[in-house]
């Protein structure tokens, strides 16, 4: 057991730090959270800088245009970029963490060549069209229909909670191609161009007041058959590759950010006198223990993935359960530090508190994650 960088890791970290120190001061100011076109441009601009410096797709396989770095080096990248205050993946999230890795794993050479370079170069944005109004936790019950018509699929239905849909060029879309097959067997994975005729995006306002996600209506949209990744009706398996990526590495930078927020919170508490409230102060101390542990759990999971060739294990569910709860606890504690100011949206952490509420829902609710842990790790019988 060892937590120190190897010489190569240390060198990688040092060079990355040097590069970040050089480029970050020259970044344009962060756009306003409501200005989606500006946010897209900002996120893509950052991705382009990463690409030019050789840091794009660090964890992707080399033959997919990535750098083939193992999970440990990817962890260093995420840790250092977050510590330096570099932009978050933002609109590149689905492209880099879901759709891209799926295409890298399951796509044909032609599909890889078409879709992967623009993701790495910061030219195209992807969104994820999985959830539907009647298919959330029970994703396999999805009903958006697709039928073959010559060299195209004709797709009708609707998707919901689609993050970044408004600014996306592509959507990784799950559709039902065989309504008669058992639920998991009749699903197909398609790359949907968001500008295709028949696609309508209607923004949804979140409880935090912003338009982070949208409804996507599909009315006889023609999607070329060549846009299908994996075999027809094999989309469920293709999708599971993506979801395991999501749960493996998606929150690394955030844990670092939470630790920083916790320090700021302590300083605020000292400034406003609430530090003298022993139960509150101890609650902050306990959160320090919590986020230290979550960081160690990340390192543990990454070391494990390193041993299995980069495939994140079920440990991702353990992490997600604990982390999403800890994040909510962090911002609930922030509210206590703020006192009555916790109702003022102009104060720091108040919006963060609101958005933390989605963490036990998005990417598989905590209840579903507990089912996964119980059934897949502990081997308890499937319910139903």
């Amino acid at each position, binding site marked *: *057991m*060892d*937590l*120190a*960088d*190897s010489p190569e*890791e240390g060198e990688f970290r040092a060079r990355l730090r040097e590069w970040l120190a050089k480029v970050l001061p020259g970044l344009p100011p962060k756009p306003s959270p409501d200005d989606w076109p500006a946010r897209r441009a900002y996120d893509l601009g950052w991705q382009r800088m990463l690409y030019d410096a050789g840091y794009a797709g660090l964890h992707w396989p080399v033959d997919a245009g990535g750098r083939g770095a193992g999970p*440990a080096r990817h*962890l260093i990248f995420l840790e250092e970029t977050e510590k330096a205050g570099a932009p978050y993946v933002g609109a590149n999230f689905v492209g880099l963490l879901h759709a891209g890795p799926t295409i890298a794993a399951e796509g044909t050479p032609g599909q890889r060549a078409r879709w992967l370079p623009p993701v790495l170069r910061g030219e195209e944005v992807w969104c994820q069209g999985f959830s539907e109004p009647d298919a959330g936790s029970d994703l396999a019950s999805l009903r958006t229909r697709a039928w073959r018509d010559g060299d195209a699929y004709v797709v009708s239905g609707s998707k919901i909670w689609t993050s970044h849909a408004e600014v996306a060029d592509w959507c990784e879309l799950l559709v039902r191609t065989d309504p008669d097959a058992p639920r998991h067997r009749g699903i197909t994975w398609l790359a949907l161009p968001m500008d295709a005729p028949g696609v309508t995006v209607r923004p949804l306002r979140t409880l935090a007041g912003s338009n982070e996600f949208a409804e996507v209506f599909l009315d006889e949209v023609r999607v070329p058959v060549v846009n299908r990744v994996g075999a027809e009706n094999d989309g469920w398996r293709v999708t599971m590759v993506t979801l395991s990526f999501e749960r493996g590495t998606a929150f690394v930078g955030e844990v670092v950010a939470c630790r920083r927020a*916790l*320090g700021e*919170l*302590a*300083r605020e508490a*000292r400034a406003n006198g609430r530090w003298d409230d*022993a139960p509150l*102060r*101890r*609650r*902050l*101390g*306990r959160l*320090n*223990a*919590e986020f*230290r*542990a*979550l960081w*160690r*759990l990340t*390192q*543990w999971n*990454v*070391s*494990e993935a*390193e*041993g299995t060739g980069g495939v994140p294990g079920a*440990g991702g569910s*353990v992490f997600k*359960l*604990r982390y999403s709860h800890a994040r909510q606890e962090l911002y609930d504690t922030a509210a206590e530090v703020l006192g009555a100011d916790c109702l003022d949206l102009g104060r720091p952490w108040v919006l963060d508190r609101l958005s933390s509420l989605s963490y036990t829902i998005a990417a598989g609710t905590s*209840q579903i*994650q*507990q*089912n996964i*842990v*119980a*059934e897949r*790790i*502990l*081997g*308890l*019988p*499937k*319910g139903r």
Partner: protein
Amino acid sequence: MHFQPTDDQRALKAGVRELLAGRFGRRALRAAVDRPGVLDRTLWRELGEAGFFALRLPEPDGGVGLGLPEAVLAFEEAGRALLPGPLIATHLAAGEVAGAATGETVVTAAYGGLVEWLAEADVVRGEAAGAVPVRSVDPLTPLHRLPRPPGAAPESGPEPVAVLLTAAEQLGGAARVCELAVEHARTREQFGRPIGAFQAVKHLCARILVRTETARAAVYAAAVTADPLDIAAARLLADEAAVHGARDCLQVHGGMGFTWEADVHLFLKRAWTRTQRTGDSTQSDELLAEDLLPVRV
């Protein structure tokens, strides 16, 4: 970074588990429960021979020459087996108290407000004069209370290595109650199916695992860094995993969980005992809170 245990470390852990399964299996555990307050000196010497106490003592001094991570893995196994005795105090005395390393001498220590195994110990470290026996809630840990004048400042608590090894024992206990809960949930049937098919039971088990695995990462990391803050964090997480784990395991066992015969209560009581051994948990909270503020000059 290779945070996972090495092959040697895995082998060591498996070796300790095997030794304890052979020498302190369920029958021995229950026999010990039936003879409260008696320490098995033969077993103690066998542990000494196996290098349990001399694990971190340098080889030139007759020790095994291993480090904290190895000690943590060994004590995790001890916690898992509910091995009784002042293991940590004796381990820490190796090389300092004659016979501790080999298991000839049983050493206990006066940490916090209590002393474990005082009557059975050959040597007591720290001030234990005037200690009075307590009717210990844990049948496998006899306790004495140390006299403390009312209003005295809280004890400073044991040294960080003792805190860490206690956390390792807690981790082992948590991992074991997770297994016990899952075993019971798979085999006990109600309403025509294993109770583990019911989501309420499943989620209890899942939460035991989540707490255990989070604690594991914290405990192992603290073993690598030996940083007092990492150790304090490990202690808080491991206490939580052990105590809540045993509670949830008890719940999964239903009426059986409330019996003397089932082992669950032994895990819960030992977990409670260990939380007291390492001093008041608010001290760990405070240490970690202080760490959040910039260093004052």
